[in-house]
């Protein structure tokens, strides 16, 4: 089913949400970042268990003719491996860089994604990344929004990329 719903600042060109086209774009944007920056082929998967146990979360806000939050969630071990691949060093030598790396990955995915949406790139700003460590938190979406999610297998570890859109 194709859903069409506008997400826009009224002063900016409108963008129509389309789950069927936006979900593959989110997947592609994520895969490109991992391919280029980590030299890793991400494998999309249908579903992954363990989301509630993902200890690391990176959030990047989008504001403009689309508004929302892009998040990437994974285990501490997965984040450490990501940082090691970005920096070209063994995972056991990665220190606090794993948090920074996860935030930067989220930032690049968000930028890559909005760049692929026709008419969005010039009218949507990104926030600096926010990192959450731990699982004892709740998120609450604003009413009327839509969510798209892409799930991946990264080095046999689950990875969730979610875009929550606000009206």
């Amino acid at each position, binding site marked *: 089913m194709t859903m069409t719903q506008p997400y826009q600042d009224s002063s900016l060109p409108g963008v129509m949400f389309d789950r069927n086209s936006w979900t593959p774009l989110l997947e592609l944007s994520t895969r490109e970042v991992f391919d280029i*920056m980590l030299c890793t082929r991400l494998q999309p998967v249908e579903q992954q268990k363990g989301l509630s146990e993902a200890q690391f979360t990176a959030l990047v806000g989008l504001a403009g003719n689309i508004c929302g939050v892009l998040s990437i969630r994974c285990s501490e071990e997965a984040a450490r491996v990501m940082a090691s691949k*970005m920096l070209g060093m063994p995972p056991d030598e990665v220190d606090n860089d794993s948090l920074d790396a996860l935030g930067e990955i989220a930032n*690049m995915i968000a930028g890559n994604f909005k760049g692929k949406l026709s008419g969005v790139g010039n009218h949507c700003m990104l926030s600096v990344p926010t990192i959450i460590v731990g699982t004892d938190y709740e998120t609450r979406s604003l009413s009327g929004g839509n969510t798209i999610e892409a799930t991946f297998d990264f080095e046999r570890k689950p990875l969730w990329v979610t875009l929550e859109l606000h009206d």
Partner: protein
Amino acid sequence: MSQIKAMIVDDSSVMRKIVERSLRQAGLDLSPVLEAGNGAEALGLLDGNHVDLILSDINMPVMDGLEFVRQVQTVDKLRHIPVVMITTEGSESNVVQALSLGAKGYIRKPFTPDQVKEHVLPVLGL
């Protein structure tokens, strides 16, 4: 090729390390790289340090990359330093603004080492 004194401005320490590695992979002989987490910190480091090349993110706290470039251009002894933007903010309007403010080039994240080489060597006349 003589040693290049580079400054990398990015609020991500991981990204600063990746950019430095890419510059070395591009064949540049770098003297110790100056690092700053935002534009204001970078301006402070430029006061008293000789720099041949600046690579700067745009989206940073405190002072963003566009304001940093603008301020660099207002200082006689700094405006000759080539600034290349490296950012996820790859929109055309940001490219136009950065270049109009005085940036010499623009690299969009995610990037390959070859892209860094392609954009950086020409601004150094190499």
